[in-house]
């Protein structure tokens, strides 16, 4: 494919027809594109209509002076190379034309060689100017890009919630964003300031270590620092050396992130794990204790006693199994991995089947159940297994913490957009301080009346999680020694 080279454009302004046509032909033969004007006015019109590379302007024309034409063309296109052609070459006109921006002047009459030589000089000059212009423009564009890139980067770094701090190898501040100051709880720092005194010692130590290394390892060193006491602000600082292009150390970049919430969650998790460990270990210790006794021949445990201990071990193992199941349920509920089957749940039927399931426990303690359930109680959208679990936990509590031959009242009715279910027992009730901790994991009311009642300590915390997962609410009223009432509201319109 032929490369299209833009032809050099030349304008000839001259009132002398012969010269005009002669020069045009000559230059066209040289490969230039030539336009002509036969008077000053026409010269100005054409010269301003587009940018010519070179213009050759006759000084003396009947209508307008050549210098005037030069001025007009230069005004419109300062980079057009203009020659003044004149028979009256004088020192004065040379100066004047140069002052007006002419590149040179061509004395008349001129030989073709002279003309071509001058035009070639002019074209070269023009190419230099154009090239310089192009470079200048390119550089300006790049600078602009660079400047906007820098400010973009600045905006990004300023906007991120992590703290960013850059120091040089003299531990002088090179760059910081405001999150960094906030996380380090420092004020009044300036770029260029020495900051080793202002940084927490843990960070200074790492910086020291990085700076004093003989060789730069592109390795990030992290540390966690309690900035404000009582776990109010804990940050993680990640320090990474920044190398120069030659491999020597330029400085250190420190990224600070707020890990307070993670730490708090970790603390809660650890507390939960120790509670679980304790709850798991208690029945295990009892079972292991019994086995140790049975295995120890020197103790001479008789057969009947052995059997009793094994039976008691079985009960402890069952409670251990219940506990593990409850724990799994809680963890599933919290992870929300439990596959729910949402359907229309009939409260009356669910209550009935729960009571059937608990019939044995009810009979054992001779507890009577009275129900008062509104007819045509609307169904709720829920997973029937979860609602069954909810009722089972509450009613079995109402049995466990009831007195012998006590009663349970179950009331269910519609209250605006909610189904309201009340489960009341005539049991031992709770003291106010026990009520406050009722829904916490592993909390079990302990007093002279609760002895011998077993449980995992997770039943009510599961109930609460189920109720809240359906955007319902649970309340409890209790009088110590007289009984407890749980009231649940579950929304009817579930999406």
């Amino acid at each position, binding site marked *: 494919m032929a490369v299209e080279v833009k032809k050099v454009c030349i304008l000839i302004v001259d009132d002398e027809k012969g010269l005009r046509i002669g020069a045009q032909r000559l230059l066209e033969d040289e490969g230039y594109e030539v336009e002509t004007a036969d008077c000053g006015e026409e010269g100005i019109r054409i010269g301003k209509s587009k940018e010519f590379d070179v213009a050759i302007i006759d000084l003396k024309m009947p209508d307008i002076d050549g210098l005037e034409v030069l001025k007009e063309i230069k005004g419109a296109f300062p980079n057009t190379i203009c020659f003044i052609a004149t028979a009256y070459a004088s020192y004065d006109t040379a100066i004047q034309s140069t002052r007006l921006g002419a590149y040179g002047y061509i004395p008349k009459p001129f030989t073709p060689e002279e003309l071509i030589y001058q035009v070639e000089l002019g074209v070269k000059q023009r190419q230099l100017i154009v090239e310089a212009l192009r470079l200048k423009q390119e550089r300006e564009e790049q600078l602009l890009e660079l400047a906007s890139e820098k400010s973009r980067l600045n905006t990004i770094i300023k906007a991120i919630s992590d703290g960013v701090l850059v120091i040089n190898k003299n531990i002088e501040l090179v760059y910081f964003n405001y999150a960094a100051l906030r996380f380090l709880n420092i004020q009044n720092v300036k770029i260029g300031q020495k900051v080793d005194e202002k940084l927490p010692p843990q960070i200074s130590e790492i910086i020291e270590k990085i700076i004093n290394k003989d060789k730069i390892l592109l390795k990030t060193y992290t540390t966690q620092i309690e900035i404000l006491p009582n776990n109010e602000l804990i940050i993680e600082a990640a320090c990474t050396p920044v190398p120069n292009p030659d491999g020597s150390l330029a400085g250190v970049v420190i990224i600070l992130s707020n890990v307070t919430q993670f730490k708090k969650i970790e603390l809660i998790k650890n507390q939960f794990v120790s509670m679980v460990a*304790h709850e798991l270990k208690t029945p295990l*210790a*009892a079972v292991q*204790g019994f086995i140790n*006794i049975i295995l120890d021949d020197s*103790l001479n445990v008789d057969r009947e006693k052995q059997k009793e*201990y094994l039976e*008691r071990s079985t009960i402890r193992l069952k409670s251990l199994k219940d506990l593990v199941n409850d724990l799994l349920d809680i963890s599933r509920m919290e992870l929300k991995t439990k596959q729910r089957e949402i359907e229309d749940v009939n409260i009356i039927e669910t209550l009935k089947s729960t009571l059937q399931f608990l019939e044995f426990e009810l009979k054992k303690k001779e507890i009577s159940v009275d129900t008062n359930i509104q007819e045509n109680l609307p169904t709720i959208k829920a997973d029937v297994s979860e609602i069954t679990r909810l009722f089972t936990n509450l009613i079995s509590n109402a049995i466990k913490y009831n007195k012998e031959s006590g009663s349970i009242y179950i009331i269910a009715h519609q209250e605006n957009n909610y189904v309201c279910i009340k489960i009341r027992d005539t049991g031992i009730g709770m003291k106010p301080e026990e009520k406050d901790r009722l829904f916490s994991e592993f909390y079990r009311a*302990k007093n002279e009346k609760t002895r011998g009642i077993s449980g995992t300590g997770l039943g009510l915390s599961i109930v609460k999680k189920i109720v809240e997962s359906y955007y319902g609410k649970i309340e409890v009223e209790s009088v110590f020694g007289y009984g407890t009432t749980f009231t649940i509201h579950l929304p009817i319109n579930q999406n």
Partner: protein
Amino acid sequence: MALIAIIDDDPDILDASSLVLKSKGYDVVTASNPTDGFKIITERKPSLIILDVMMDEPDDGFFLAQKLRRENIQTPILMYTSVSKAIGMDFNKSEMVPVDDFVEKPISPDELVAKVEALLNKVGEKK
């Protein structure tokens, strides 16, 4: 033979420990909460107290131990623990926990008897 008081809220542990100690000829009294525990100690004046940490009780085993010392009851205390290893808690004899030794649950009959004998001997030497 010496009288030993065992205070633990787990009835299975109470029975198992009682059986072990009785088989070695000790007399045993038991209580299943700190309040009853304090009562049997002041009334029966045992030679040794085996006390569970009883984390679930509002007044736990540590609390009872401190209360006994405040009342100037210097009977040696052997403390039952079941959680120290699980939660990385290290109990040590200190002002906060004025007890004489620890036994990790589950009880091993041999270890229990050995610790009980050692503590009783120590008291005997002092007298």
